[in-house]
């Protein structure tokens, strides 16, 4: 009888005990931050892998299933994830809270004054790669905290404590990164896509041009030739490419100039050894620092 009672209780426990808050994010970076705040009291998953281009994610039913079970869906917004509305609709989850982090007051760069396809695959609401400026992580973390607290009010002290610890670590690293890069302020780089505008502005690095002639437009021979001249004239030392882009054009530029091609991940897990947001930024800052050395 006791055994039967224990079995019955064990079966009921998952139903009676409050379920962990289930969070799904688009990028692994946001998942890492959410996990740092929620700890073991939340379940976190993400859609995009660090080595995938977040602009071009195929709408898969498996992603819809992730959102179907989720309480909170966190996205970058600003039309980075054009695929997200289809996944949200396909999830059939009426109670899903969608947190668009672009609405929390982060300063937006490169907001276009003209929107048409002659400008390439331009984002109407500005450059969405704002998570690559680590100073933006504080408002992002606060927004995630507010969502988690709404979902699990009793856990607020736990979440707040975790967030404070995380931001303290991050602040220390920001100071370290800024000190490292300060002597290189004003250095010029070329990037493949406009992924690095926030990152470069934070460190005082100047992005002279992109390998793409316009956002989202594949490199052309003419533009590549122009970039070779630009690199030679401007003594540009680094061409920054995310892991998912074709290296053909950057390597052609590199072969004819002194510039070094460096592959920097825009998201956690994009290259090995970047399993957290802080380790990814650490990798990016230090790799760029090395590449910019005279």
């Amino acid at each position, binding site marked *: 009888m006791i055994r039967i009672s224990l079995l019955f209780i064990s079966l009921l426990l998952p139903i009676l005990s409050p379920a962990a808050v289930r969070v799904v994010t688009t990028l692994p970076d946001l998942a890492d931050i959410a996990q740092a705040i929620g700890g073991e009291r939340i379940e976190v998953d993400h859609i995009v892998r660090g080595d995938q281009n977040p602009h071009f994610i195929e709408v898969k039913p498996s992603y819809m299933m992730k959102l179907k079970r989720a309480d909170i869906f966190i996205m970058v917004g600003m039309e980075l994830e054009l695929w997200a509305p*289809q996944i949200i609709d396909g999830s059939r989850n009426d109670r899903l809270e969608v947190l668009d982090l672009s609405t929390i007051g982060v300063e937006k760069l490169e907001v276009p004054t003209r929107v048409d396809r002659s400008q390439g695959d331009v984002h109407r609401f500005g450059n969405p790669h704002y998570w690559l400026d680590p100073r933006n992580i504080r408002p992002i973390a606060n927004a995630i905290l507010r969502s988690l607290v709404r979902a699990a009010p009793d856990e607020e002290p736990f979440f707040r404590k975790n967030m404070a610890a995380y931001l303290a670590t991050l602040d220390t690293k920001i100071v370290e990164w800024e000190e490292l890069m300060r002597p290189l302020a004003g250095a010029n780089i070329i990037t493949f896509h406009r992924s690095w505008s926030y990152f470069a502005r934070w460190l005082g690095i100047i992005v002279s041009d992109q390998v793409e002639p316009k956002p989202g*437009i594949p490199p052309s021979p003419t533009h590549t030739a122009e970039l070779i001249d630009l690199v030679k004239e401007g003594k540009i030392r680094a061409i920054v490419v995310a892991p998912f882009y074709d290296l053909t054009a950057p390597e052609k530029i590199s072969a004819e100039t002194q510039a070094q091609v460096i592959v920097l991940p825009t998201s956690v897990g994009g290259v090995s050894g970047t399993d957290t947001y802080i380790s990814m930024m650490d990798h990016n800052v230090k790799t760029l620092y090395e590449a910019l050395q005279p």
Partner: protein
Amino acid sequence: MESPPRIVLTIVLTCITTPLQGLAQLSLNPDISVIPRFILETNDGEKLDDGVRQFSRPQLKFQELEMALQGYLNPYARADIFLTVPGPDVEEARVGIEELYASVLRGLPLDLNIRVGKYRVEYGKFNRLHPHQWPFATQPLAQTAFLGEEGLNDLGISASILLPTGDLYTALTADILSGAAAGEAAGIEDTTGRAPYYSATARLMSFLPIGDDGDLELGLSGYTGIHDPYNRDRFVYINLDFKYKYRPSSYTSLTVQGEFLHNMRKAHQNHDLEQYQDPEGTPLEVSIRSSGLFLFADFQWARIYTMGARYDWSQTPYSSDDRAQAIAVFLGYYPVEETLGIRLHYQHTRWQMAENTRSVNMIGLQLLFSLGVHKAHPF
């Protein structure tokens, strides 16, 4: 194709001519995209009746213009309108409605989704695709033979539920259709003026991730309706479909996709089917079984290039003796993302009808461009 109601044209013109007065205004308009298709085509079958096999002078043809208007109606539902101007006659072409439906996406019990209107039915995987989404330039023979030039596209009501299969995405979709598509495609045209008999479809599909980079979708569909309104003869189609996609990187992928359709129907002799008359002229009731299949692979090896091949085999709805086979190879070039596509398509098709055999080689260079919103690609 019938002209759409004037109100639809008014909506379209209003959407196009409304100036973009800031982003808030923009976001209230439906998403608009326009995709025309042209083809430069030649084949060696036009003079076969004269005993001559030679390629015709390549002709540039307008195939179709599709205009999509899509957006949310309210927090619970969205509407999708696809207007079409079919070719090849550019001057006399009339606007038609390819799809016009509203979908209720949330707020219903059991997470039910409802779709009402005219739409390409979720029968198999391929039927939902518009021609510009195909990686090749021609429709598979089995689709044309059993579903018609436009695929299975009808007025109807569709309901879809997700089945409780854990982490596995499994959906069941069922449709009640007006039945008009059955007569237009693989049936007998009803000239009595009576309303067509309803038809029905259902599809059960599952989606299975395979490893980090691969996904497989499997589907089983059924379609039944009245193909002969004079004798109330019914047909039943059973369709198996699969799609596997392996995408190890953003610009490399391999898609393998195919469908098999089996047709079962009773048929009577009538004015369209004289072959079912016995020597004494007595109408016969016959039971017909026939099938069709297609299988293709599409390989993207760089950001802007794709290549692939397709195999078709098909009998016809009224005969297992009449059959056709085709082999096609195709090359896709997308120099500036999805805004411009060029497809080179070669196809060898061989028909065998009774004692006669005929084969034709076709070469087409298809050009399409896309103006407006780019939506994410569904699997």
